[in-house]
């Protein structure tokens, strides 16, 4: 097992597909914590997040042959968790409503106020109050440290939309964080 732990996700997937199903536990170990955190940021309920992540690992295993090993496994598994959490949000109507008192009037340079290093803490603190469409890219960008391209692949939205949503989310978050 130790030899396999040094392999990339995509290489492990190739081995699992060939015969060694046991190696799937390495994949689970690598991703469960990150995915649980991502799901919880979206759902805001630990039990339902755990169900979503577990169900996603099962779906990923069943559909492992549909994964293209030339692409990033992380984007693929995040996408599955994303879909699963959205299903739960729709099923239980868990979405955070859009706040009434936020605005985009402030045109100052947001980047100056939101340095990526210290923003991770701010994001974790304020994330729960944001609408879902902003939680998704913000959580992936700051907490999971995904690139715009990876976020685009996970959320299935164009890269330009990812950048716009992150920028808007920063503005809304700044507003919320300052009020708190």
């Amino acid at each position, binding site marked *: 097992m130790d030899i396999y732990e040094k392999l990339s996700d995509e290489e492990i997937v190739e081995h*699992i*597909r060939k015969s060694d*199903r*046991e190696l*799937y*536990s390495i994949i*689970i*170990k690598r991703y*469960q*914590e990150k995915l*649980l955190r991502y799901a919880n940021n979206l759902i805001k309920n*630990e039990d339902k997040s*755990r169900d979503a*992540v*577990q169900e996603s*690992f*099962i779906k990923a*295993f*069943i*559909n*492992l*042959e*549909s994964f293209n090993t030339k692409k990033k496994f992380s984007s693929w598994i995040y996408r599955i968790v994303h879909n699963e959490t959205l299903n739960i949000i729709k099923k239980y109507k868990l979405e955070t409503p859009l706040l009434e008192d936020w605005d985009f009037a402030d045109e100052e340079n947001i980047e100056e106020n939101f340095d990526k290093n210290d923003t991770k803490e701010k994001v974790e603190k304020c994330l729960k109050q944001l609408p879902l469409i902003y939680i998704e890219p913000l959580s992936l960008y700051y907490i999971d440290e995904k690139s715009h391209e990876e976020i*685009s692949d996970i959320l*299935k*939205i*164009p*890269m330009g939309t990812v950048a716009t949503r992150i920028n808007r989310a920063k503005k809304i978050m700044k507003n919320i964080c300052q009020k708190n």
Partner: protein
Amino acid sequence: MSKELKDIENNVMNQIHQGKIKIKPKLYFILGSILTFIGLVSTIITSIFMVGLIRFLFRTNYGWRAQYRLEQIFSEFPFWIILIAIIGLALGIWLISKYDFSYKINHYVLIVGFILAIIVAGFIIDEMGVNDILMRHNPMKNMMRNHILPGYR
């Protein structure tokens, strides 16, 4: 490792060991992709043909001047062709949105682009006379006679 994380790993791995979950064979996904592609191509061809046919019917049966004879058009025009064309377009848009590249294109651009491409292709095919040629031969000739334009020769 926290208990809840250990639970996820154990639950998933137990189901794998017990054979409750199995990897679907590659063939399943290959067949799925082929069928989706065939579906997309079929809806595109159907929609293009229907657009060409609608134009052809207006030209041959009523003439461009007679477009104003709305009453005759409403009473005789086979509107189910338009319905098929619309269903074909909607199906085509839905199928194309299933492809991986589609999310990188703005959704509205994709829909408008698809509809425009079908209409333009329908016009071109009709201009080239492909519809006329098809209509003069079976099985299209029979279909025209029996279902689309009774009395068509």
